[in-house]
């Protein structure tokens, strides 16, 4: 199997843009190609992640996505779940030796569509769950209740995730939400569905992320500092919440297979930084447990200890995470991009003040983390 190097990334910022989806997508793609000095037709394959239906009212991915990402007259494919898988699908033909270069693009304009709760209500099955009004946020609130109850996690500990991530986002030029908040601000924000508060929920963001992947030989030619793809794992749970233990998600399975592939035996010690997908604040704590950063039920103590702060031993979401920037579908590729920048030492003002050798990028979609995916990158 061939090694896969990540050569270059470009991201757009999350605030509402007056550009059309086509114009908005073109910019980061062009930026990546210009940075490495490649023409779009020199790229062997294009893998996109976007959504044709509810999260993009256009419903016309074929009309806008391909030309704008440079894929016109090239081998190309598109995926709808989460962009982190488009990253992995992009790695595969390189690992196989079929392609030298692949461009991966995740794109969405969140400002153009209805609130996530309206849209995710369509994710529920139409006969049994949708009629009662379940959607991603109401499902998450039930998961949070269980989390607080079973392990004695406090609402303050969950609120600290928001404080940490939004504070990190102040130093990330691509983050959407830029405001400093206190634990009290979070606790006093509207209880939209108890125990979940408004400030604990991710926004809706614009987001195009473009990333050039290359074979080992090609990557070394195109950049001084390629970042290497080391491991990947994913797992899908059943849909019905009643069939699952909401605090025992498929993230453990996904992480175990990613760690195995990357040769990681002690994630807490071996991983230098993690970018997780936490559309609801408490989920970062739960994901940290399932990723093996602390024992089960110890997510609250983990954030209290300061380990996951940007200055801590294992910073989690130095970019501000999904709480600060939530381009649904593209968000998984943003996690990978941030991990790449930290390893390259090019994260700018939110660059970690330490050597970063191994980074983890995580993404999830579906109610209460139905699907989970983990990518490991190395220097």
């Amino acid at each position, binding site marked *: 199997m061939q090694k896969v190097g990540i050569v270059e990334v470009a991201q757009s910022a999350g605030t509402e843009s007056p*550009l059309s989806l086509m114009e908005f997508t073109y910019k980061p793609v062009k930026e990546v190609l210009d940075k490495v000095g490649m023409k779009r037709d020199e790229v062997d394959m294009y893998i996109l992640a976007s959504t044709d239906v509810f999260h993009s*009212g256009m419903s016309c991915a074929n009309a806008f996505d391909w030309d704008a990402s440079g894929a016109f007259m090239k081998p190309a494919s598109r995926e709808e779940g989460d962009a982190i898988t488009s990253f992995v699908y992009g790695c595969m033909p390189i690992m196989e030796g079929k392609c030298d270069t692949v461009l991966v693009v995740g794109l969405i304009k969140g400002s153009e569509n209805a609130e996530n709760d309206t849209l995710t209500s369509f994710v529920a099955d139409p006969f049994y769950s949708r009629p009662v009004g379940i959607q991603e946020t109401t499902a998450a609130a039930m998961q949070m209740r269980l989390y607080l109850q079973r392990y004695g996690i406090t609402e303050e500990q969950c609120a600290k995730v928001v404080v940490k991530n939004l504070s990190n986002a102040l130093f990330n030029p691509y983050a959407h939400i830029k405001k400093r908040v206190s634990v009290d601000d979070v606790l006093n924000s509207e209880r939209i569905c108890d125990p979940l508060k408004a400030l604990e929920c991710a926004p809706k963001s614009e987001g195009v992320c473009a990333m050039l992947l290359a074979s080992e030989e090609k990557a070394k030619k195109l950049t001084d500092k390629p970042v290497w793809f080391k491991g990947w794992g994913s797992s899908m749970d059943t849909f019905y919440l009643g069939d699952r233990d909401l605090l025992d998600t498929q993230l453990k399975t996904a992480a175990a297979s990613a760690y195995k592939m990357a040769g990681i035996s002690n994630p807490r010690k071996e991983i230098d930084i993690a970018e997780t997908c936490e559309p609801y604040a408490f989920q970062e704590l739960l994901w940290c447990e399932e990723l093996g950063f602390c024992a089960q039920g110890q997510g609250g103590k983990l954030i209290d200890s300061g380990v996951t702060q940007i200055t801590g031993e294992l910073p989690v979401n130095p970019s501000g995470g999904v709480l600060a920037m939530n381009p649904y579908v593209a968000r998984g590729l943003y996690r990978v991009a941030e991990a790449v920048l930290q390893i390259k030492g090019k994260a700018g003002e939110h660059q970690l003040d330490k050597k970063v050798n191994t980074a983890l990028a995580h993404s999830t979609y579906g109610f209460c983390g139905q699907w989970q995916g983990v990518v490991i990158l190395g220097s």
Partner: protein
Amino acid sequence: MAEQKEKPRKVASMGMVPYEMALGPTWTRFFEGFKEKRILGTKCNKCGRVLVPARPFCPRCFEPMEEWVEVAQEGTIVTWSYVNYTYFGVTPDMIPVIGATIKLDGVDCGTGMWTQIGGFDIKDFELVTKKVKVGARVKAVWRRKRQGNFRDIDYWKIIE
């Protein structure tokens, strides 16, 4: 599965979701041109092609298309279809319709627009087959009141 008496049912379902989609500077300028009865294209400074509708960048060369050109309002039918059935959003009063792709003079692509041929009794299919042909010449006919959208071109008239 054990045999059951009742016939499996269906549940009617319809979703309504609001959207507000950014037209962006390129489409905006293109449709502003319609208000003044002008069809605008963009020219690629690399390959020299003029494309209609206007594009923010050349899909082939992947360079920004910053040069605007006004193009001819006459052209040639590339292909067409006589649409005479209803589907969701198309009511009986809206048909028949003659959809066509037209290559405008001086433009380097078949205008990707789904344009409508009209100006005569298109309910008469015999007449349609006599007048509408691949290669036939057409001319844009504008609406009196224009709002800067695709409806501003009322129809494309066959030049006899």
